């Protein structure tokens, strides 16, 4: 099914839980199927699917986890090369951010949504998206700064 992989990538970042993410994507696909008559042809089907995903996520009350599960698939204790270590560090830094920041980073930077599309998906003004994306990048950069790591996180 088209978009499933992208939906699951985003869902994992939102929920920080692999099984919860799968449930969220499954619910999204079924809601999309049942509500397809509401989709306006000629509009962005990908944005429509992600909007359903976010509505479902926020509708579930976020179900935040106090101890996020590692979703990178990398054993943090295993010996890894420098590239893998950097990916792991970045993924962990991303997962430590606020949900709103994780959302715009994974949508905008990883999945390639424009700010206008993110505004549609998240149902917020485009100006809010732009400022949120800027703050999210700053937060991620701060998490990855050596001084932050040396302190053991916030």
């Amino acid at each position, binding site marked *: 099914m088209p978009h499933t992989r992208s939906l699951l990538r985003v869902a994992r970042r939102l929920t920080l839980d692999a099984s919860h993410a799968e449930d969220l994507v499954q619910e999204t696909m079924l809601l999309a199927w049942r509500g397809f008559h509401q989709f306006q042809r000629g509009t962005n089907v990908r944005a429509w699917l992600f909007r359903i995903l976010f509505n479902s996520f926020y509708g579930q009350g976020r179900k935040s986890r106090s101890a996020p599960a590692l979703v990178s698939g990398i054993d943090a204790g295993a010996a890894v090369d420098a590239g893998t270590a950097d*990916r792991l560090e970045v993924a962990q830094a991303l997962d430590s951010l606020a949900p709103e920041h994780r959302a715009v980073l994974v949508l905008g930077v990883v999945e390639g949504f424009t*700010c206008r599309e993110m505004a549609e998906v998240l149902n917020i003004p485009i100006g809010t998206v732009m400022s949120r994306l800027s703050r999210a990048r700053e937060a991620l*950069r701060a998490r990855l700064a050596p001084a932050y790591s040396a302190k053991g996180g916030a």
Partner: protein
Amino acid sequence: MNCSDVSDLSSSYLAGTLDAQRSAEFTAHLDSCASCAGVVNLDWRLRDAVLAEHVPTAGIEARVRRHLHTPRSVPRWAAAAGLAAALAMGVFGYRMVNAANPVYAAATEDHLREVVEREHRSWTVDPAAIAALAQREGIAPPRVDLLAPPGYRFEHAKLCRLNGSLVMHLVYSNGAQQVSIFLRPSARTLAVHTASRDGDAIAECATPRAWALVVTGQSRAEAARIARQVASAL
């Protein structure tokens, strides 16, 4: 191009989807703006980290299909309003199974999930072990080499159930296409007849020795031809 544009277009630039002119403008801006160069560098690391992760989707897609195959889960109005359009828009790339014939529906579902999408199953590849398995269950031991469609080679087989009936599922491949042949005991002769289900062709036949069902992504004529060969080899 300004810093705001770079912030918005960074992902497209990294994905290589900006046109040549915009990409040149983007690069020129990075050469003169250390702040934006830092943003793009961080974005690159983030994309690299997240896109490198393994994201298995087969389980979700199978679960969604199962839900959609349950008649009560697909309201008539939804199907009428959205099915053709959804498929045309590429929202759902799967094939709907018409459950009018539950054996055909189960066979095409197994063929899709276990053969085309290669969901993990325990298969047997040794022809002697397959023959023994079949005999144990009262199914005429198949000569897997004789059942092979021309140009196809035998891959593996296993016992499974189609709509409650125990069958032997044999899989053949020519490297690009796969053919599923399901066998079970039979006490009567049935002339070859064919059907189409969701992009797959199905051909059913039976001899006094065995009943066979062929499922393939090729044409109904090809499925019928394979079924006739299977019937002569049973």
